[in-house]
C-alpha cells in the first residue's frame, strides 16, 4: 500500500485537465494529477505515483542533495579504506 513510484510527466491529456501521461521506465500510463493542482508539474518533471494519482512532485534539487551526501559518504569511506590499507602498524 505504501507503493509509490517515480515517473516522468510526458504530456497532459487534451480536454482532461486532471489527467496526464507519465513514463515509468519506458512504460506509459495515464494518471490523475489533480492533487498537484496548487503547483502543477510541467512535462519533463518527475512525480511520485500512488494508485493512479500523482501525490507529490519530486524535487530534483533535493534529490541531487541527497545523492551528494551519499557520494560524500562513499568517498569518505573509500578514503578511509585506502588510508587503512596504506597504514601498517608493524
Amino acid at each position: 500500500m505504501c507503493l509509490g513510484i517515480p515517473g516522468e510527466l510526458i504530456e497532459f491529456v487534451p480536454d482532461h485537465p486532471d489527467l496526464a501521461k507519465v513514463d515509468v521506465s519506458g512504460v506509459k500510463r495515464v494518471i490523475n494529477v489533480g492533487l498537484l493542482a496548487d503547483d502543477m508539474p510541467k512535462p519533463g518533471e518527475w512525480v511520485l505515483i500512488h494508485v493512479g494519482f500523482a501525490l507529490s512532485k519530486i524535487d530534483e534539487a533535493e534529490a541531487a542533495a541527497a545523492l551528494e551526501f551519499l557520494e560524500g559518504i562513499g568517498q569518505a569511506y573509500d578514503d578511509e579504506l585506502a588510508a587503512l590499507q596504506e597504514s601498517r602498524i608493524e
Partner: protein
Amino acid sequence: MSVGEDGTPVGGGRAGWVAEALREHEEQDERERHDHADVGRRPLPADREQQVLDRIDRARRRRPKVREERITMSHGAGGKATQTLIEAVFLDTFRNPRLEQLEDAARLDIGGARLAFTTDSYVVSPLFFPGGDIGDLAVNGTVNDLSVSGATPLYLSAGFILEEGFPVADLIRITESMQAAAAVAGVQIVTGDTKVVEKGKADGCYINTAGVGLIAQDAPELGVALARPGDAIIVSGCIGDHGVTIMLARGELDIEADLQSDTAPLNDLVRSLLAATGGVRALRDATRGGVATILNEIAKSADVGVLVREDAIPVRTEVRGASELLGIDPMYVACEGRLVAVVDETPRLLVQSGLAGRACG
C-alpha cells in the same frame, strides 16, 4: 453467513480450519520429535531464531495437502498452489514412477526407442498479442517441453475447443500461425480434434497440444534433481517479456509499452548447447511461474540452495518499469521462449565456446 445469538459466527468456518491446522502441525511435530529421540539427539541450534526456522523447514517438506474446497486462480498460476494441486491430487491418484519425475515431458522406453511425450493446454487471453498468438504458443510450448527433455521434437496433436460465435477468420489465422511455427521448429501436426461449446465458454478458443519426440540413444540424462552444488544456472535471454506483454495486451491496465512476447522454439538452441558441452544437467523452458519457479523446482528436487545474482539476470527496462508499477517480481513472470540450463561449467567457459547469452534490449 450465519451468526449466533451472541454475535459470533457459527458453523466453524475459518476458526474451525485454524484449530484443525494447528492440531495437525502439533501432531506431526510430536511424531518427528519422537523419531529424533530414537536416532540419537542432534544438538539443537543455540539460536532461538534458527530453531524456529528449522521447524518451518521441516513443515515445508511435509506432504502437501490441498486445503481449499474449490479451485482458485492460484491453482493455475504455476507456483506453489499449482505444485500442491499436482502433487496432492494428480500424482497421488495416478501414481507411477514416470509421472513422479514431474519433468516437462515424460521419458518412455518403447520397443527399444526412447521417446519423450508431453502435453500442454493454452487458454491465453487475448488470443492475438504483440509478438504472436495462441497458435504460436501452442506449437512452441510443446516443442520446447520436448526439446528440454533432450528429444528431437517430431509430431504434435492439436485439440481445439471453440466458442460458439468465434470468427472463422480468426481460426484460420491461428491455424496458419501454428503451421508457420511448426515449419520453423521442424515438426508436423499429425492428428487433432475439434469441439464447439456454447457462447460464454472457452474464451473464443482453447487449444491443447500433445507432442512426441525421439531421444537419441546417447543423449545425456537430464533432470533438475541432478543439479549439484557448484553448478551454474544460465538463462538464454531477457525474462518476463511474455507475461508482461499479455498483461498489458488485456487492456485493463491502461499501460502502454513497446514490448513483445518472446515465444520461440528452443530446439536449435538446445541442440547447440548439448553439442558444445557435456556438462548439461538439466534444461527447462521458463513458462508460467517464470524463472523463479524453475529455480524453486531445482532447489526442491535436488535438495540444494540456489544463489541468485540479481544483476546478472537480464530484464528489459520496460519489463522492470511495468513490474514496478504493478508491484510484481519479473522473476515470477511468464516467459515463452527462454531456456534455463543447469550446467557444471562456469558461464565463462560457455562464453568462450561461442554460446554467449543473446544480448537483449
